[in-house]
Each structure stands twice: as structure tokens, then as C-alpha cells.
């Protein structure tokens, strides 16, 4: 079916939105959900519904990620008449009959429910306890990403229809500029300005690129959008293409996301079939096509010039800017590279206007940001919050604090390019500027929470190891400088460093920041500088006292067995190198010369009889 006019679009949307079913059951089928066992639960629902002959009364919808990674498999049951909904977490197959039998809006017995902490600014007013505002994730976990009709029923392609049939390209750019939308990939560059640069170029051929090379470890919001709502990215790319005068789009996606790749392929095919991509979209004479290009495991390809080289089939090495891609990008043509999350905001802004968008967030950073909470936090998952929210609200209210009642130490934002934020700054309102002022950065939105058991020197070394692996080797500061930083951090972790090492570490870090070629190198010392600034005492403990306060650096710790030992032999049996000896019911002994300090004994002992020194 070709959708060749806004009228046709509205007709189909109305048709798709009408449903005779009384209940809708949304089953979360993102990567995490599937890995946690959602498929058997889905099958159980299908089987039970068929057995009870309820196919017409209950719709089972496979949706993308709801962001509730901590409670997968998760499902939502919505009563269509009243709109009442119940979200269940950690659903097991055995609970399926009870869930189906529960009255609308009532909670089934013997199940675990999850409180909804978000609202949808586009269709609802804010409730007091809704800390999250979902614009980017508006369809994730609510629609079947593999069905175009589901997207159409939720205002899909309405923004594109409005742009192509009622707006001039410059008006679109003005709207995005007025909304204050900034690049969500990390840098925070104003999106409207980027589009304006490319639009000003007189060139018959231009390109729109979507950066879906989400390489920052611990960030998975782009994956959630692509798996849960792929059409919203396609629609925004066509709008952007119209605004700058481009007819070709490229989505550069990492090969590590097979499900996202599959759903994008499907979405592109559906949009082409419906005439929403290709020639003469909505009968306006505007042509736009989108192709997929795969990454191949190189973090530096998240940098836009490196990404462009990779699309061109070359090594993903960055080049000096200027010229900026907006002037000379893919195949030397004007090119705009925007991140997935940035695109996911565009359609909502077109539909609701710049003022609506600016009413959410802060003056300098309007809108929302999706954060991926991971690490030692109790509720791992995705949250989308208005800019300006306090870190405390994210970690303690949405994330439910630290797992196992441990003490919060720091949160790393911005991944290997960012820095850590400590307890002292939990009440800072989060936006691009405030994070930079704290020596960190927004980055793509990964938040790794660390507790008292994490050694900050070792964390800095981890990030440097990452940078070393991922440095393309083109410029000397990054290739050699980071290698030296890593060696110095290793010396500190192994107790071989002096105070001179620390001062060298600081000065080399600053030099690399000033001299490296691209964003990867320029930001690689950030974790080092940030941990020194916030946790210098830990560095000093390693250097002066030869101690690792968190008990992580193996060279600086030793294990011994105290007199609480009852001789249960558990530790001796679990030791992988057999260095623990002792008679049954007698105190055991660790042979320190053979011990590899793996900590297995420490974890396995039920009597607190093993000391870590």
C-alpha cells in the first residue's frame, strides 16, 4: 500500500489505532529481555490465550525495551477501556494464567509489579511522582517495532507529512534551532546550527548520516531506540534530509547489535514499500533513500570523521577538522552526522513545536536525556529524565541506590572520555555545562555506578586500557602518550610508583589533552585527571603506603584465614590453584607463595573467616 498523501496517512493511522480487543499485553522483546528468558513467557501467553479462546479479546504485542532491565522478563497489561495498566517484573511462565485471570487494573496474586516512574509529555500531563519524561523512548516498550501500522497508530510519519507538505526547508532548520536541541552523542553541539551549515552549501549531492555506532561501554540507549522504535529514526532522517537538501541517508550501525540491524532492515523495507522512503514522498517530488552500513568493532568510528572514512570502506582513522563534514564529508560532499538519540527527538519537536520542547529541561540544555544505569546500582536500566534533574534523584530514586547496601562512591559518566562524579556533587543539576564543570561530560549517557569496593586507580587504568586498545595509532600523543599513562597507572596499582610518577602522570595527561588529533585522544586522559582530582588520597595510599584501600589491586593485597574458620573445607575445595590446606574441622591455611589472589575463597567463605589485607 502506497501512502501518497497526508489524507491517506491519517486514514491508515485511524484504522491501525482501532482495536476491538479489551486488553493489550506488551511483552518486552529487546536483547536484554530475550537474554533473560522473555521468549518462553511470550509463548506461554500465546498458548494460554489460544487454550482459553481469547484471541479476539486480548492482543499480545511484542515490544522493544521498556528500560526495566532490572526486572526482565517484564510485561505490561493494559485495559483498553479504562487505560489502566499494570507492569509486571521478573515474570515466570507459571504466573501467566494468574495474570490473564486478573481483573482490569488489578494485580495478579503471586507476582511482582514495577511502579511506573515516567510520563509521556506528548500525551499526558506530569504526575507528581513521575521523575522520567519519555520523549525519545515514547514508543519503546509500547509498540511492535516490526509493524509499520503500530508506528502509524502513534503519530508515525505525521511529522514528515507536515514538513513535506506545509514547510520550507529553512523553516524546519529554524524550528530545530529554536528548540535548542543539542547533539545527544556527547558533544552537545546545537543540531539546528549543524543543519544550517550543511544547508548553506551549494552542492547537488549531500548526505545525512545516523551515527548508531554506540561504542561507549555501558551505554545502550541507542540500541533500545533502534530495537524498539526504528521508524522514528528513519522519519527524522528524511525530515533532516529535506531541511539540508540531501537525498541520501546512511545509518552506520555496529555489528554487535544483530537485533537492531534486523529491525532496521525491516523498517527500511516497510517504509520503501509504503512510499515513505524512495521517490516522490507524499507526492511532493522529494526523494530520499537510506542504506545501512556496518561497523566492525572500532570505538574511534564514533568520531564523525573516522565514521565517514569507515563508510567509505577505509580504516576508521579520524582527520583534522576543519574542514567540517558539513562542508566536506562523505565522498567529499556536505554531510551531517547526528546521533540516534538526537534524531529520535526531531519528530516530537516538529509535531509539538519548539516552545513545547523548551518547557522541558533547562534553558541551556532543553529536553530530556536517556541514561543507561549500570554497575553497582540496584535497578539497572534505561531512564529518560528532563535535563537539570539531580544525580541523587537518578541514583537513589530511580535506581534505588546501591546494591547490597554498600556505600556509594562515584558515578562515571561519559565513558572512557568522561570522568567521575562523587558524593559531594550528588545535588548538581545535570546538563551539558554542569557535567563539564565537574570535569566529566555528558557523553552518550552511560552511567556506571561504583561503590566502596571499587578502586579508582584501577578504574582509571581500565579506561586507559580501553583507549590503548581503541587508539587508531595515527597521532603520537594518543598512540604513545596513552601507552605511557597506562604504564604509570600499572606501576601505581602494583605498588612500584613514586611521587614523581604521580606528577608525571598529571603533566602527561594535560599534554595529551592539548595535542591529540581527535576527540578520542583529547578526552582519553579525563578519567585519570578526574580520579586524581576527586580521589587523590587513593593514589597516595597506593604510592606511599603500598595499600589499595578498596582491596582490588592484587599486588597490594593478601588473603589470610582467621580464627573464625570452622574447617568446613569450602575454601580449599573452591580454590582454583589448590593453595589452601587444612584438616576437616580445623583452621585452614593459605600458602601465600602459590595464591593467585583471585578472591574465590573470600567469596565462598560463609563464616567471614578470610581476611583481605
Amino acid at each position, binding site marked *: 500500500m502506497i501512502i501518497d498523501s497526508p489524507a491517506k496517512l491519517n486514514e491508515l493511522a485511524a484504522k491501525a489505532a482501532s482495536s476491538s480487543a479489551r486488553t493489550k499485553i506488551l511483552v518486552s522483546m529487546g*536483547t*536484554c529481555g530475550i*537474554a*533473560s528468558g522473555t521468549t518462553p513467557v511470550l509463548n506461554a501467553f500465546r498458548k494460554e490465550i489460544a487454550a482459553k479462546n481469547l484471541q479476539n479479546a486480548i492482543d499480545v504485542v511484542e515490544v522493544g525495551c521498556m528500560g526495566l*532491565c*532490572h526486572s*526482565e522478563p517484564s510485561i505490561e497489561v493494559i485495559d483498553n477501556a479504562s487505560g489502566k495498566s499494570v507492569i509486571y517484573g521478573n515474570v515466570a511462565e507459571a504466573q501467566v494464567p494468574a495474570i490473564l485471570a486478573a481483573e482490569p487494573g488489578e494485580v495478579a496474586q503471586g507476582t511482582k509489579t514495577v511502579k511506573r516512574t515516567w510520563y509521556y509529555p506528548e500525551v499526558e500531563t506530569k504526575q507528581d511522582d513521575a521523575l522520567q519524561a519519555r520523549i525519545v523512548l515514547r514508543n519503546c516498550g509500547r509498540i511492535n517495532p516490526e509493524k509499520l501500522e503500530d508506528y502509524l497508530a502513534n503519530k508515525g510519519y505525521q511529522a514528515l507529512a507536515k514538513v513535506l507538505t506545509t514547510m520550507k526547508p529553512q523553516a524546519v532548520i529554524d524550528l530545530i534551532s529554536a528548540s535548542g536541541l543539542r547533539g545527544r552523542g556527547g558533544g552537545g553541539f546545537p543540531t539546528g546550527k549543524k543543519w544550517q551549515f550543511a544547508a548553506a552549501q551549494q552542492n547537488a549531492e549531500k548526505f545525512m548520516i545516523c551515527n548508531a555506532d*554506540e*561504542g*561507549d*561501554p*555501558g*551505554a*545502550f540507549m541507542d*540500541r533500545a531506540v533502534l530495537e524498539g522504535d526504528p521508524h522514528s529514526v528513519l522519519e527524522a532522517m528524511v525530515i533532516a534530509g529535506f531541511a539540508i537538501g540531501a537525498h541520501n541517508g546512511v545509518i552506520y550501525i555496529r*555489528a*554487535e*547489535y544483530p537485533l537492531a540491524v534486523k529491525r532496521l532492515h525491516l523498517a527500511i523495507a516497510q517504509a520503501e514499500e509504503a512510499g515513505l522512503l524512495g521517490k516522490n514522498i507524499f507526492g511532493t517530488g522529494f526523494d530520499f533513500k537510506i542504506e545501512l*552500513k*556496518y*561497523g*566492525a*568493532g*572500532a*570505538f574511534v568510528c564514533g568520531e564523525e570523521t573516522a565514521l565517514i572514512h*569507515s*563508510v*567509505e*570502506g*577505509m*580504516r*576508521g*582513522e579520524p582527520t583534522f577538522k576543519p574542514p567540517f563534514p558539513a562542508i566536506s564529508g562523505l*565522498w567529499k560532499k556536505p554531510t551531517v552526522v547526528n546521533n540516534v538519540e538526537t534524531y529520535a527527538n526531531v519528530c516530537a519537536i516538529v509535531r509539538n513545536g519548539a516552545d513545547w520542547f523548551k518547557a522541558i529541561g533547562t534553558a541551556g540544555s532543553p529536553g530530556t536525556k536517556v541514561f*543507561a544505569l*549500570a*554497575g*553497582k546500582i540496584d535497578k*539497572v*536500566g534505561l531512564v529518560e529524565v528532563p535535563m537539570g534533574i539531580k544525580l541523587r534523584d537518578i541514583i537513589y530514586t530511580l535506581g534505588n541506590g546501591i546494591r547490597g547496601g554498600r556505600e556509594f562512591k562515584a558515578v*562515571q559518566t561519559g*565513558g572512557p572520555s568522561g570522568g567521575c562524579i562523587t558524593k559531594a556533587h550528588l545535588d548538581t543539576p545535570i546538563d551539558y555545562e554542569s557535567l563539564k564543570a565537574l570535569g566529566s561530560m555528558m557523553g552518550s549517557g*552511560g552511567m*556506571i555506578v*561504583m561503590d566502596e569496593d*571499587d578502586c579508582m586507580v584501577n*578504574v582509571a587504568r*581500565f*579506561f586507559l586500557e*580501553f583507549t590503548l*586498545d581503541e587508539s*587508531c595509532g595515527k597521532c603520537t600523543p594518543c598512540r604513545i602518550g596513552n601507552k605511557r599513562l597506562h604504564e604509570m597507572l600499572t606501576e601505581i596499582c602494583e605498588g612500584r610508583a613514586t611521587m614523581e610518577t604521580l606528577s608525571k602522570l598529571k603533566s602527561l595527561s594535560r599534554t595529551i589533552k592539548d595535542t591529540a588529533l581527535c576527540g578520542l585522544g583529547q578526552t582519553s586522559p579525563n578519567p585519570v585527571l578526574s580520579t586524581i582530582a576527586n580521589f587523590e588520597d587513593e593514589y597516595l595510599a597506593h604510592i606511599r603506603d603500598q595499600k589499595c584501600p578498596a582491596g582490588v589491586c592484587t599486588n597490594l593485597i593478601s588473603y589470610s584465614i582467621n580464627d573464625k574458620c570452622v574447617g568446613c573445607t569450602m575454601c580449599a575445595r*573452591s580454590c*582454583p590453584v589448590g593453595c589452601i590446606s587444612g584438616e576437616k574441622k580445623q583452621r585452614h591455611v593459605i600458602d601465600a607463595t602459590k595464591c*593467585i589472589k*583471585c*578472591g*574465590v575463597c573470600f*567469596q*565462598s567463605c560463609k563464616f567471614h573467616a578470610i581476611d583481605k589485607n
Partner: protein
Amino acid sequence: MSCTCQTPGTADQNLLVQRPELRAELESYIQTLPLSANPDRNRGFLIQTLHKAQSIFGYLPLCVQLFIADQLKLHLSEVYGVISFYSYFTDTPIGRYKINVCTGTACFVKGANRVLDEFKRYLNVEVGETSEDGKFTLGSLRCLGACSLAPVVMVNDRVYGNVTAKMVPEIINDCE
């Protein structure tokens, strides 16, 4: 032929000859690419062709590299340069079971290194190596985006979550 300096008759060379059906599969894939519309831009198809070739052959031996270079009218050095740059591509054969320990940040803070060390010790290999019996290749990768299950280990397509060093022998046993 872009480069003719390869030694004929090496084990690598035989792969295209020995497995004509695989060669045909790759060839027909390349034929579906819209090549030569703009010859300068043909290199834009290189990475997707390498992905396809690696999925067909399991790795990218010299003969396959030469074949692709020839088909896309590129130099072998350009093809090899791309393969060596991206961690996803490999020019050495890998084991039947590819064990990938996620060493992303979330997995790291939850003890992925201890798990990786235990795999190294248990299989007696370093990261990137294949065990002597050719069964297991140990690798590490950065973030599968399944941080709620950290630490995560992926064996071929199967994902293990909340892995501890103690589970290593079980995971190996699962493969057998």
C-alpha cells in the same frame, strides 16, 4: 588481478579451490552489489563484503582477501589494512566455540577480569588465541549492552549472565 605475488598452493589458497560452493556464495553476493555506478565509490562496499566473507568462511584467509580485492578493484594492501584495523575481522582460523568475555565498564566493575583470568588459566590460552585442540577461541569484547546481566560471557550466540570465576568449568562443559 590486483596482486600476483601470493604463493600458489598454500593451505589458504586451497580454501577457494576446495570449497567451490563457498566461493560461489561470496561471488554471488558481490554480484548483487550495485558496483561500478561510480567506480571511485566501490570501496564503500568493502566492509560489508568482508562481513559476508567472514560469515561464509569463518575467517579471512589470504586467498579470500585477494579474491575480494580483485572483485572490488582494490589493492590487497587496502583490503588487508581494513581487516587489520577492525577488531571484528580475523585472518586466522578460530575455534569451534568462540568464548567472548565482555570487558565493558559495567562488567569490569562487577569482576569480568577475574572471569577472563580464569578462562585464560583453564584453557591455557591468552586473549585472541585458540586452544590446542582447536575447540575454543578466547576473546574479549566491549559491551553487548546487556549490562543488567554483568558480567556477561557470550559463547557463540549463547549469552551467560552474572558469571563468576567458579562457573568457568561449567560453561566449558556446556560446549562439549
